[in-house]
């Protein structure tokens, strides 16, 4: 018989009694001032007190024993349940905790770099092309409603030329049928963007900046790369994944504090998508017997035009928050050096 001092709360009244605990075979013996009570050990639950808090033993009758002598009570009852022991062990030592933090950082990195893109890649084929087209129609309607896009002010044959160029790029085994829309968009500026499902929007402003047809073709090929790799859906799935994972891990902190990591992760995924679309464009251009340098040239022209219009500091390229890779990097297709643009 060991004697361990404990406070006994009966669960009905708030005043505890001081009692002595001991063990007799498979029974826990509680010696109170008024007599002795016995409980089967199997029915008593030991709960570890965190840090300096006392351990508790939950008794089958709803009472609780609060024990400050933790080593003694854990030995008496045969140790902590395994699940509780884990957290305790990690909390005991700063070295173990530092190792755990390094492992956690690795897991986060692996998840962001490989697991989430792989999960998105597994999920994407399950979504039908018709869903993409529906999504594209909504986005387009929304843009037009906001007044960001209006009817093209260029001659009608420019739009026809674009459509013809696109038909030239169309690969045989693609599930998408491309349509190119030419739109007047002064707020968006010289730009082209792909909507999921095969719709590519080109702005009038782009055609005034990039005048050579083969360079326009390079841009269309890049946008087709976004469509073929389903980047619109991919970003949606990836950003939802990042947000869900972070919410699950951080739990009780405010979701506003998650804005920074989510923005960083989304920008990084976006740059990866751009590189993938670039590679697609290079391959298509080469298949057409055109130089992959054309894409870099057209991007350079857009950048120069933007700088002339808005001043030299408008382009944000290459940074951690940038949605597109550095234009310099994109002007070296497949590692080769392009002759400078005149």
């Amino acid at each position, binding site marked *: 018989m060991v004697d361990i001092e404990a406070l006994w*709360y*009966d*669960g*009905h*009244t*708030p*005043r*505890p009694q001081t009692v002595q605990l001991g063990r007799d075979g498979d029974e826990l013996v509680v010696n109170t001032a008024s007599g002795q009570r016995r409980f089967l050990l199997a029915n008593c639950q030991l709960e570890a*007190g*965190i*840090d300096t*808090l006392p351990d*508790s033993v939950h008794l089958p009758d*709803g*009472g*609780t024993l609060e024990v400050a002598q933790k080593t003694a009570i854990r030995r008496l009852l045969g140790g902590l349940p395994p699940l509780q022991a*884990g*957290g305790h062990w*990690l*909390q005991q030592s700063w070295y173990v*905790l530092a190792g*755990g*933090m390094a*492992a*956690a950082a690795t*897991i*986060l990195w692996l*998840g962001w770099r490989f697991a989430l893109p792989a999960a998105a890649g597994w999920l994407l084929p399950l979504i039908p092309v018709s*869903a993409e087209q*529906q*999504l594209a129609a*909504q986005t387009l309607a929304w843009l037009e409603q906001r007044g960001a896009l209006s009817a093209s002010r260029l001659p009608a044959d420019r739009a026809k030329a674009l459509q013809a160029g696109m038909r030239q790029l169309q690969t045989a085994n693609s599930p998408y049928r491309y349509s190119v829309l030419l739109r007047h968009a002064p707020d968006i500026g010289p730009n082209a963007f792909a909507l999921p499902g095969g719709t590519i929007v080109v702005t009038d402003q782009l055609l005034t900046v990039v005048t050579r047809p083969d360079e326009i073709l390079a841009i269309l090929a890049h946008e087709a790369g976004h469509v073929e790799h389903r980047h619109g*859906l991919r970003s*949606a*799935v990836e950003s*939802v994944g990042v*947000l*869900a*994972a972070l*919410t*699950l*891990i*951080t*739990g*009780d*902190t*405010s979701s*506003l*504090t998650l804005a*920074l990591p989510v923005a960083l992760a989304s920008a990084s995924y976006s740059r990866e998508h751009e590189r993938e679309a670039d590679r697609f464009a290079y391959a298509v251009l080469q298949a057409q017997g055109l130089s992959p340098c054309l894409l870099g040239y057209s991007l350079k022209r857009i950048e120069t035009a933007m700088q002339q219009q808005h001043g*030299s*500091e*408008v*382009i*944000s*390229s*290459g*940074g951690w*928050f940038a949605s597109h890779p*550095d234009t310099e990097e994109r002007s070296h297709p497949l590692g080769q050096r392009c002759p400078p643009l005149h």
Partner: protein
Amino acid sequence: MTHPANEQMRPIPHTLPFAFSATTGSYARLWLSNLVLSILTLGVYSAWAKVRNLKYLYGHTQVAGGRFGYHASPIAILKGRALMVGLFVLWQLSAEFSPLLQGLLGAGALLLTPWLAVQAMRFRLANTSWSGMRLHFDGRTEGAYRAFFKSWLTLLLSLGLLWPLATLQKQRYLLPHSRLGRASLAIAPCMRKLYLAGFGSLFAAVLYGVGFTALGGVIWFAGNTLNLPAWVNAHFGHGSMRVIDGFFGGMLGILWLLATLAYARMALQRVLLNHTSLMIENIEHRLRMVLPSRTLLALHFSNTLALVFSLGLAWPWVRIRTLRATFNQLTLQGGPDLARLYAQGQSQYDARGDELADMLALDLGW
């Protein structure tokens, strides 16, 4: 209600202070180990993390010599979280693909809110103890629907202007059903004070705006004096300073919002706490929280700064000092004899639960 006769018989109404004894150091270890294990287990441990977290914080909160305790099963919390994350993902994806599905989800969530509130209160209180006695929530779902719809109708008809009344309408249902034995909680009318707290929060927003703008100005000025922009542009390419400027401005905006929201939440909580009383056999014992507004302003300003400059690592310090500021200023007035409280024990109330809730036994929300 207090009888005048009783008032005279009690010579000096003494007060029972709350005490909060958690320390930053030990909470920081707990927080870090929780975070590490949550990541290593891909979020599964977060349920255990929540339980350990609350066990620690409740265990260090005491009133009248009795400590609070938290006893929820992590499995129940895990089930609730899995459901919440699933619904969250569905919600986000439906926003992309189908506004109709999102509308249905939203309407469903709205219709279920009162029921969920009852479930959450039952779960939380049944798993909370004071001095070894379990609390419980004895509100019925019908009552919750009445109270919540009344509150929403008030908001809708007054275009949100009567928000304090709407808050009180909910609290008047939730608090009286929160019980410890025969003791329960009650809330006194405090619309005027709630409005004042609202205006106070707007004023705090202005002050924080000035504070963060001044701080940003100082940093910007210091950077320019050191010729930082030229150096950054030279080393990271043209335009990188513009990105940094934009990011810096955005961060200041987020900080301002975080600080203001934290202030507003605590200012409203202060009013509600100061009008809440513990009812024991029809005698009311008011809660009282003395926390001057300037302390509150300084608290959340410094909290936000600490969080930013430590990249979030100061969270344990922020959490503990905020809780300490709350509980060390909280007292129970009128000297109730809490030792006379008697709880039946939990079994009786568990048996009363409807089957669906027992089958689900979820903890919803964070």
